[in-house]
């Protein structure tokens, strides 16, 4: 009895060690890349926002295989919840975080139930139409959202009266993204995550095991929307304003590409892809827009040549290296 509990505890301990190792490496590498540059601090904030939206999409898109493209709307809900409660209601901006998550999850739930029969192209098209209609609505509902000019002057959240300096905010953002990535990656390996991926591959088999695949997908969509909402909320810390155009359809496309670039085998592919997307599209020398073109080319090349993304490619490259070494030794 005692021995089984020890062997069960050891992998858990090892997992935790590996995860904290990855987190520390990520924080260290990002801080090193950022340096003292204020511009790069903005870029890291943007990458963190992208990463959260991509992590939100990871559950339904990569695991459940249902491509909902309404994620720009969920990120906007997160940002507008913070903006509305703090600027228009005078509450602490912290209240906007759970409020935005709850509203985004509720909206995703309704949308998921309404579209539960759809998959593939149909789901993508309807959710895109929802995102378009929502953006129009944001520009129209002036009393809540401030109309086309949006809401500005959003206060930076404080901790018991202490207003953290910019560098601490960036650090907190990176740590937050790491925590969410660990959470999603654990979810991926959990029984629930396995059921979710199994339902993508073979719905009837999962159904016959007593699990309802549509139920799984709806929960994944709602949870993903809540995570994407934190991305929008985080963005208001960096840029203290939000407009209907802040989270456009481009964000949805980029969020689809991030796990593909980083690698779909692990939840860490999403933040890695976000960092690459920001570095390529915004930090490139050359004229405006060349970064996005390069990005589109990179995504197509990865899809066609290295479907595992950067993480998958690194894995297979190291595996090949190791196997060739062992062959040499023989």
């Amino acid at each position, binding site marked *: 009895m005692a021995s089984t509990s020890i062997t069960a505890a050891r992998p858990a301990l090892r997992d935790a060690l590996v995860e904290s190792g990855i987190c520390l490496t990520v924080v260290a590498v990002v801080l090193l890349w950022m340096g003292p540059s204020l511009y790069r601090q903005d870029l890291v904030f943007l990458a963190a926002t992208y990463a959260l939206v991509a992590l939100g999409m990871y559950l339904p898109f990569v695991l459940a295989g249902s491509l909902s493209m309404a994620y720009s709307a969920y990120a906007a809900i997160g940002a507008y919840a913070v903006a509305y409660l703090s600027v228009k209601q005078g509450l602490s901006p912290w209240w906007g975080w759970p409020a935005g998550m709850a509203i985004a999850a509720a909206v995703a739930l309704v949308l998921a139930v309404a579209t539960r029969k759809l998959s593939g192209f149909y789901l*993508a098209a309807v959710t895109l139409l929802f995102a378009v209609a929502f953006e129009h*609505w944001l520009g129209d509902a002036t009393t809540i959202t401030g109309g086309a000019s949006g809401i500005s002057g959003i206060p930076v959240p404080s901790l018991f009266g202490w207003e953290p300096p910019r560098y601490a905010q960036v650090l907190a953002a990176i740590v937050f993204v790491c925590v969410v990535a660990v959470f999603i990656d654990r979810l991926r390996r959990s029984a629930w995550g396995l059921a979710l991926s199994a339902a993508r591959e073979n719905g009837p088999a999962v159904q016959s095991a007593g699990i309802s695949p549509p139920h799984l997908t709806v929960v994944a969509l709602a949870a993903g929307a809540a995570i994407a909402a934190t991305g929008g909320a985080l963005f208001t810390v960096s840029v203290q304003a939000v407009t209907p155009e802040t989270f456009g359809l481009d964000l949805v496309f980029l969020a689809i590409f991030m796990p*593909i670039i980083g690698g779909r085998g692990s939840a860490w592919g999403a933040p890695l892809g976000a960092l690459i997307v920001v570095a390529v599209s915004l930090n490139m020398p050359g004229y405006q827009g060349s970064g996005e073109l390069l*990005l589109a080319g990179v995504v197509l090349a990865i*899809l*066609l040549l290295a479907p595992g993304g950067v993480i998958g490619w690194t894995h297979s490259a190291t595996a090949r290296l190791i196997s060739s070494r062992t062959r040499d030794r023989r």
Partner: protein
Amino acid sequence: MYSEGIREMTDPQLWLAGAEIGCFFALVALSIYLVVVGASFFNFAAGPYAMAAALLTGYAAAHWGVPILAGAVLGIAVAVAISLATEIVVVRPVQRRSGGAELPALVAVTATLFAIQQLAGTVFGRTPVSVRNLLPLPDFRVGSLSVQGSTATIILVTALVLPAVILWLRRTTTGQLLRAVGDNHEAARMIGVNVNRVRLWAFGLSGAIAGLAGIVFAAKSGAYFTSGLSWTLTGFLALVIGGTGTPWAPLIGGLALGWIQVFGSFYFGATGSSIAVFLVALVFFALRPEGLFQRKVRV
């Protein structure tokens, strides 16, 4: 411009405006329809083909002094080339690797859409480009109805292209084989059909129709490097409303969607229009996912 005064459901001017964008939606839907039938695959990149053709035509006229007809030929040729490249470079390898699964092809075509958009933005600039009317038609009046030359061109082109494509589908061997390949490409291959060639026809024709649609519609709306996505969406939606049962379905769906948009924005404003379009899509998906015209399957 439109005449002043109270305009309502009875105003023929609004019906004409709806028919005009409806014809454009119908052409884009027809372009998507051909690939759906031939490759059972929704080509989301059809809108960007139309956008690329329109941008090239407008750009060639403005910067190289190419006459509109020659520019249109150039634009359509490029649309066909991109469409064929989509099939050969992206769709075929991805579908072969994934065993025909839907999601990988959808993701790949989404990346293609983004790539075409960014390439067009880089080459032709990220500002709207105006395109001249393809046919030298003057603005004219029919009774109280004022018809712009570009409107007449769109309707005329649709009236010519749609019957021609239907004739091609029904009268030529390749057209008849298209459905066989789309329904079951393994079976079609088994009985000796050159599946790849038939699919190339579907993609090529689809690109040509999309390019032509983009060029004639851009005379009205102008072309912008991100126009492609919304064009794809409306074409797709027209096909959802019409269904894929008959080649006439894109026209029916397109016209219905055109009138929904025009009257929706007339009565409820731009936001109301986009919400109405979204609700119509939801209603159709919930109640009649096969569209208005379903193909009768004989067993």
